[in-house]
């Protein structure tokens, strides 16, 4: 049975809620009462439950098995985090309640801030960014603010970023008016230090670097890099997307980082939720701390907290405001729950297990697939597509064939610097037995691909998924971005049949 759209299920006279009759009042809408139908469909509660239950069953999820999506870190999402986030007195607080009535909430934020600062070895953290990219914006604004304070903002217009950087890095820098200059990688998958040094000059504002980098490797010369950057008068922005590989074992502050955003959903397991919400607190070095955006949660004497909501109220030069209210509180709660559940010992162990699992996958597959770089890797195993050469099977085909084996594909074609890249991140959450099954499935696929006779099969994959391959070109060429009554439902539409 195909699942109709809610707009194809609705009938007038149906409603999924019961609300009391409003008392009759003269409306005070300045004559602007809405005229005519909105066009929302009417469904009963049972239909709503069935619709979304059936939709959910068309998704793959961490709760179902291995989800080896490199760079995305699909680790286990503990349910206690969901529970505490919903506690009355936490989940239901209004952000503008009198500060005296939210002392526990402010303490909670401050406690998470303490963990983030301590784990990174950094003196300050800006909590309000809503996601990783937002955190990047925050961090780069802080760098701009520091340059402005130094009177160098007009002079330093260049941001250096490795070719392998996440797309957000150049996008952020460009939005702030910086010119992005790519730095090549060396043949070991790391930043080419010589090229970097050559690029550094009085026009450089910052370097944006991911570490461990997007190839899943630790930047071995990171200390030299940060020294060179600082000597050139520039700042070191670290993309914290991969902090999960080293959390509890390495403090970015010890590497000379000036600022780093932390994707709470990657490192600290707040749920991905089909694409959000995230949260992207940014830790800041002493040089950047004064520029943190408000609100600042400030602890006064006597164990009371206050919210400093403008520059006048704090001891600094805040760069401004980035988000309404205090940031993604719901994600803070979940992340703190995860952090307290792990503790300093468990976070370290989790990072080690993630790295060990990635190396185990790489070691188990290196004879049939082609690792892009020599190991040890960190939390991700990166392969290129040379093992598929002349097989007629592409990275895309290989990924889609994994779906028929019951797995979510790995990240494909990222990082861009590796041809036909396949980036596998097993995380610390999978049992060895499950990794073995996963490795077995990939080995079988690789061998089948190399047999040279299976290209057709690979191109036809997936066959056992809710949908076969979708026509993305059609979607982009003639965008249908919403339902309209005039939309022609495709052939075989159930609601049409029902009407007959």
């Amino acid at each position, binding site marked *: 049975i195909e699942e109709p759209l809610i707009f194809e299920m609705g009938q007038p006279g149906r409603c999924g809620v019961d609300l009391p009759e409003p008392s009759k009042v003269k409306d005070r809408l300045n004559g602007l009462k809405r005229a005519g139908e909105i066009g929302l469909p009417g469904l009963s509660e049972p239909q709503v439950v069935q619709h979304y239950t059936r939709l959910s069953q068309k998704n793959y999820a961490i709760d179902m098995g291995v989800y080896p999506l490199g760079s995305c870190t699909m680790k286990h999402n503990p349910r206690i985090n969901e529970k505490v*986030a919903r506690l009355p*007195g936490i989940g239901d607080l209004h952000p503008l309640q009198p500060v005296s009535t939210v002392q526990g909430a402010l303490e909670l934020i401050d406690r998470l801030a303490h963990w983030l600062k301590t784990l990174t070895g950094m003196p300050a953290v800006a909590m309000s960014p809503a996601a990783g990219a937002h955190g990047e914006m925050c961090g780069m604004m802080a760098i701009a603010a520091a340059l402005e304070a130094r009177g160098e903002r007009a002079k330093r217009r260049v941001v250096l970023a490795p070719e392998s950087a996440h797309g957000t890095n150049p996008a952020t820098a460009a939005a702030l008016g910086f010119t992005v200059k790519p730095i090549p990688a060396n043949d070991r998958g790391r930043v080419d230090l010589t090229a970097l040094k050559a690029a550094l000059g009085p026009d450089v504002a910052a370097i944006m670097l991911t570490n461990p980098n997007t190839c899943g490797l*630790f930047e071995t010369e990171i200390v030299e890099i940060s020294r060179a950057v600082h000597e050139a008068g520039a700042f070191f922005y670290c993309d914290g997307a991969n902090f999960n590989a080293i959390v509890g074992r390495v403090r970015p502050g010890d590497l000379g980082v000036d600022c780093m955003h932390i994707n709470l959903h990657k490192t600290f397991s707040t749920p991905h939720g089909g694409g959000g919400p995230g949260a992207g607190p940014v830790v800041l070095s002493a040089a950047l701390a004064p520029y943190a955006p408000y609100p600042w949660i400030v602890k006064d004497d006597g164990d009371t907290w206050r919210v400093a909501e403008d520059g006048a109220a704090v001891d600094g030069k805040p760069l401004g405001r980035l988000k309404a209210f205090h940031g993604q509180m719901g994600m803070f709660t979940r992340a703190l729950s995860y952090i307290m559940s792990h503790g300093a010992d468990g976070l370290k162990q989790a990072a080690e297990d993630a790295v060990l699992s990635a190396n185990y996958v790489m070691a188990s597959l290196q004879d049939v697939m082609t690792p892009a770089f020599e190991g040890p890797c960190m939390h991700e195993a990166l392969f290129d597509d040379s093992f598929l050469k002349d097989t007629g099977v592409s990275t895309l085909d290989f990924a889609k064939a994994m779906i028929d084996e019951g797995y979510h594909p790995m990240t494909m074609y990222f990082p861009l610097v590796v041809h036909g890249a396949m980036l596998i991140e097993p995380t610390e959450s999978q049992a060895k037995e499950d990794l073995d099954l996963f490795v077995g499935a990939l080995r079988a696929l690789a061998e089948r691909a190399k047999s040279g006779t299976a290209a057709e099969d690979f191109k036809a994959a997936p066959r056992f998924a809710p949908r076969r391959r979708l026509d993305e070109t059609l979607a982009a060429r003639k965008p249908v971005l919403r339902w309209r009554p005039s939309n022609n439902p495709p052939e075989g539409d159930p609601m049409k049949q029902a009407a007959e």
Partner: protein
Amino acid sequence: MRYLPLTPTDRSDMLAAVGAKSVDELFKDVPASARLPGKVAGLPDHLGELEVERAFQAYAAKNVSPSTAPFFIGAGAYRHHVPSTVDYMIQRGEFLTSYTPYQPEITQGTLQYLFEFQTQVSLLTGMEVANASMYDGSTAASEAVLMANRITRRTKALLSGGLHPHYRAIIETTAHWQGYSAVSAKADAEGLEELIAKVDKETSCVVVQNPSFFGHVRDFTKLAAACHAAGALLIVVVTEVVSLGLIKPPGEMGADIVVCEGQSIGNGLGFGGPYVGLFATRDKYVRQMPGRLVGETVDADGKRGFVLTLSTREQHIRREKATSNICTNAGLCALAFTVHLTLLGEAGFRRLAELNHAKASELADRVAALPGVKLLNDSFFNEFTLRLPKPAAPVVEALAEHRILAGVPVSRLIPDDPSVENLLLLAATETATEAGLAPLIAGLKEVL
């Protein structure tokens, strides 16, 4: 460690397979100077679930839950009743623990609800097209200005004095660091502001809010026409999306971009986040729109299906040429929004809006009758502004000591303007009861 499936035996077997003697060997690329000898110092070890739960209960106990107190706070975040089905659905692991739907064959669930969400947002706002959600209303407003700048190739945004002060601050912050201009009108507590005269050939957009931060309901049809005549865009912000059940939608007033805070539908107050930003525009501007978009297509068997589309706007493809650096959306909050709105449907959503208006009308009549209190609004939806005979902030604090959560003093959001010192914002939704109203009135009488 309950979350870690690897056993000591597994670890040694795996190390052997890798050919490493210890896990330290796998970290050998870390420079020696940055290698910690043990755990990070100064942090406690792991706790069991019982202990963790207790810790959070202790945090909760230090707050006053709105469910235990008379409650009249709004100012951009509203307390509504969310049906239990909503929270139940968003907690299904298939939704909760799934990633961005980059592999459409096995994420049709997420893709279809986002397509339905986009349609709902288009209908509510009266616009042609909407994206798959933004972080929240405040950041979406800032993205809308950037989009207007791209479309008009101008850099001067004009901000209404009725715009939520946080939204204004975010746009100003972004303007400062991204190098454009944001000109803010002064706070418009009376709802009488006229911006048409300020629109000129440099103006990229005018940003207004409806109902305004102070609660006034305004018609922006003429402003829209003036903007279009000057080559500028009209951006309409809605921080209380429930109002769209009763008020003429921005699309019918000629708005070019509509941005809403969607929290009211499906999402709890959550001390300010995560919320969900709605973002709608005209078809002709779709390729300048930030954020993710889901489109309909067919699969290899010709069956209807959905995919992320027009991603050539996005950072992971366009990098420094992207329309926005945004990557994440508010997927799960968008799900909560769409499930709640589906439950409401046409009849329920309109009824909900009527209920809010009726409750707020009753509240307005009763507080306006208090001596010395002046209601500034001729029009409002579920929130309005009072001028008190004394500064509002200490009044609110005094009532908080009686566990009455009596609205927001405007000075909390606009601290630098003495003219707003006595102003109090009060909101009432369908959750308001006589049991809450009576203590508020009594409390106000006492402290005023």
